[in-house]
């Protein structure tokens, strides 16, 4: 019986941390930690392009660029070849990191207030925040999903979803010239400083 109790206790110990790790609170903790790390890097960066460079490894770790690119391209994604998909993810991640870094001006750091996280569906969590930056107040929602741990999959600023905004643009390109047109447009945007 003793052996059984020990086994039961061990099983519970193994299960409890796992269940709490998939809760909205865990996602919120992950987000807070990640954002703090990004802000920490932003503090020391000289300019936004240096920030993009130094924040890249961290952003790649905390963001699912695969899911972001797939959803930004939308239904046309299935018609991309495997190589085209990889290329699209590479280009889109570069663009997103640059966009994100461009929003920060070195020396001016955001004040972020976190609200309670919500879960619109299993394995998905939305964390609403109020971000005070350069004297203006913004409502920013971070969308997270459990893909090999928590990953950011979209950022919604004042109701404008970054992924949805890109999807309307990619959709127009895809209708005109398919995957090639999407990749060409992405390359053009990435190469434009």
């Amino acid at each position, binding site marked *: 019986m003793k052996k059984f109790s020990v086994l039961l206790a061990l099983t519970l110990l193994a299960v409890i941390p796992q269940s709490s790790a998939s809760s909205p609170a865990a996602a919120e903790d992950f987000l807070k930690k990640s954002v703090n790390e990004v802000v920490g890097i932003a503090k020391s960066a000289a300019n936004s392009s240096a920030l993009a460079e130094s924040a890249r490894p961290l952003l790649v770790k905390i963001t699912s660029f695969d899911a972001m690119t797939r*959803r930004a391209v*939308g239904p046309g994604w*299935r018609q991309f070849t495997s190589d085209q998909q990889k290329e699209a993810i590479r280009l889109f991640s570069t663009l997103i990191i640059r966009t994100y870094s461009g929003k920060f001006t070195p020396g001016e750091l955001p004040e972020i207030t976190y609200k309670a996280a919500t879960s619109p569906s299993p394995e998905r969590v939305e964390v609403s925040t109020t971000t005070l930056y350069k004297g203006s107040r913004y409502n920013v929602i971070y969308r997270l999903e459990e893909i090999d741990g928590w990953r950011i999959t979209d950022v919604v600023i*004042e*109701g404008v*979803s970054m992924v949805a905004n890109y999807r309307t*643009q990619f959709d127009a390109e895809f209708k005109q010239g398919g995957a090639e047109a999407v990749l060409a*447009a992405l390359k053009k945007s990435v190469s434009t400083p």
Partner: protein
Amino acid sequence: MKKLTALLMASAITSSCLNAAPAGDLSNNDIVIITKNGVEKAPARGAKFSKDSNGTLFLKSAVEPLPSPAPQKPVKPIAKPVPTPQHKAKPAPVAKPQKPAQKRATEAAEPTIRIQKKATPAPLDDDLDEYSHVATIADPVEPVNRGTFWFNHQLYRYLLRPFSKAYEFVLPSPARKAIHNIFDNAEYPVRVVNHALQFEFKRADLETRKFVVNSVAGVGGILRVSDRVPELADIPAADTGQTLAKWGVGHGAYVVLPVLGPRSVRDTVGMAGDYALNPVSWLVYGGVTGATALAISGPNAARNMNSRMNLYDAATRDAIDPYIAVRSGYIQYREQAASK
């Protein structure tokens, strides 16, 4: 017996006409003999029939009803239908259903009993799912709008952005913040009237308290003291376009106004309402003229332009198509404002 053979041959021909399996496969088929005594079954080959048999022979497959078609595997949902005139993406290729004639022939050749398995739903496709709904707006005059957008872009680039940069350069951040706060506080009537028109009386009350706190404790609105009071820190904004939305007025078409930028027809009307409710306009129309009017409206125009330039830059920088990026951003933003 001759009659029997003839009938057998006729059945075999019919079966092959229906593109069925070769005649050799008939060995698997039963023959049904309909007699006065009822229905009897016999194998197609090697069956022995009594000479006095007057029964008419049919292939089992010819007399038994075809098995009902197997349930079609549900097609993976690719995207929720987005009710948008601009969303014309081709749906992913879906396997064409088999032609009925072919299906019939195939089933005639294999008249085995099929156990219909309960169709299991395909796993939820996660390409778009719940985030697939994106607010859109009709853009019937897109070529004209694109022309105005291009004009505005040049105006922003060569005239307004340098001015905006100069404003940021000349005035330090605290001063800009103070100017922003003063005019934002002065726009109280726009917010309170629209909260009331939206029947949001609690918000109108909170807005009034915020105005009093900032005007008195914040020295005429220079300091936004209300931010320190949790319930006053995050009151949803209200404007006339939003009020019209809550009254059920649709967006109408998308228009790009010269200098002012993107609007829906509804929000253009709303903008006129906001202008009428803004005390800065009252001063200009209330007999204040010349240098005084400029001194009052100038900083307000500069701060509006400054924040507009920042928004414009954020929306168009790194865009694939800046025109679509601004249109999508505008409509998503307004949808969110109307839903609060």
